């Protein structure tokens, strides 16, 4: 099986201000494939928490506009996960 690739996947960071924003993320997780990096899973998402999640290239536009529409500030921690996967090996064989 060819290894999974993450070309164009992003990792977003959202600082949840309140319960409403936490519920927006939970709802988004029902319609889009959010792979949570922190916390481990949707169920742990709560108000006043910082959440990091990976989103595929094809869904990131939709998710980012949903966050914009709800005036939810987010940060893009990683712009291309595949690139970071390859860049993590940044020490030459000694």
């Amino acid at each position, binding site marked *: *099986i060819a*290894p*999974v690739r*993450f070309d164009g996947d992003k*990792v977003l*960071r959202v600082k949840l201000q309140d319960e409403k924003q936490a519920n927006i993320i939970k709802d988004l997780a029902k319609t889009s494939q959010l*792979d*949570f*990096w*922190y*916390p*481990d*899973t949707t*169920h*742990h998402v*709560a108000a006043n*928490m*910082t959440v*990091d999640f*990976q989103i595929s290239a094809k869904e990131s536009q939709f998710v980012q506009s949903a966050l914009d529409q709800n005036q939810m500030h987010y940060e893009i*921690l*990683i712009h291309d*996960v595949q690139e*970071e*996967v390859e*860049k*993590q*090996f*940044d*020490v030459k*064989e*000694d």
Partner: protein
Amino acid sequence: NPGRHSYAKYNNWNKIVAWTEKMVHKHPKMVSRIKIGTTVEDNPLYVLKIAGKDKRRKAIFMDCGIHAREWISPAFCQWFVYQATKTYGKNKIMTKLLDRMNFYVLPVFNVDGYIWSWTQNRMWRKNRSRNQNSKCIGTDLNRNFNVSWNSFPNTNDPCQEIYRGPAPESEKETKAVSDFIRSHLKSIKAYITFHSYSQMLLFPYGYTSELPPNHKNLAKVAKIATDVLSTPYETHYTYGPIASTIYPTSGSSLDWAYNLGIKHTFAFELRDKGRFGFLLPESQIKPTCKETMLAVKFIVKYILKHTS
């Protein structure tokens, strides 16, 4: 030939197995390898026992790699064994610790998942067991321990990243580790497990917001350990009970070991805080391991002094 092992790089499973053999071969008096069981896909689960000259004494159990994608964790366990063997007889503190304390080090807990994260899916977390009546693979080994195992309903879906498994200790990996710790309980005085990321030092409980009887003591140790950790590179860690510091979790190895009777149990969430997350570059392996080593040595010294 699995290729050259390096403490400054991430090593795949074949390199780690070869490395365990090399450590036993290079330090036959200090290092022995114990096969404590096999995984779902029949890979061996190896614990390295590190001991100074005398044999019978207190012990500390450390495990790494329970979640496959957290690669910095196995890197630390390899570094710990390397430093222990390299500085024994040279560094006064390490020599004193090793002359009074045995270490059981499980370099990779979730071997099948680790292999999968190298060969198929870098973001894999769980083990690779098949789930009945589901197309979804894997159990979260850190929800599979027999401690408040079914207290959270959301861990009951095999397609969830935190699926707890069909029963407590249902997974061969969990059973092997639990059996080993139970059979060495008399000597094991502390349990330390390594995860990533978010730079935290955690102690029980995760399954309840209640505090363990010796929480003040655990908090004191965690505070000093995180202070010591921050000295070389000013890496800031937070610390506290799992439930209130990170989020409530059931079936964790930390709570299980504590309730079994090991009253000093800690979980490290290593670097970083999200800039790279699970994809921490190799250039950060050494500084991460060096700073973590300082914290672990403090904890070990404390255990040596304060446990009977």
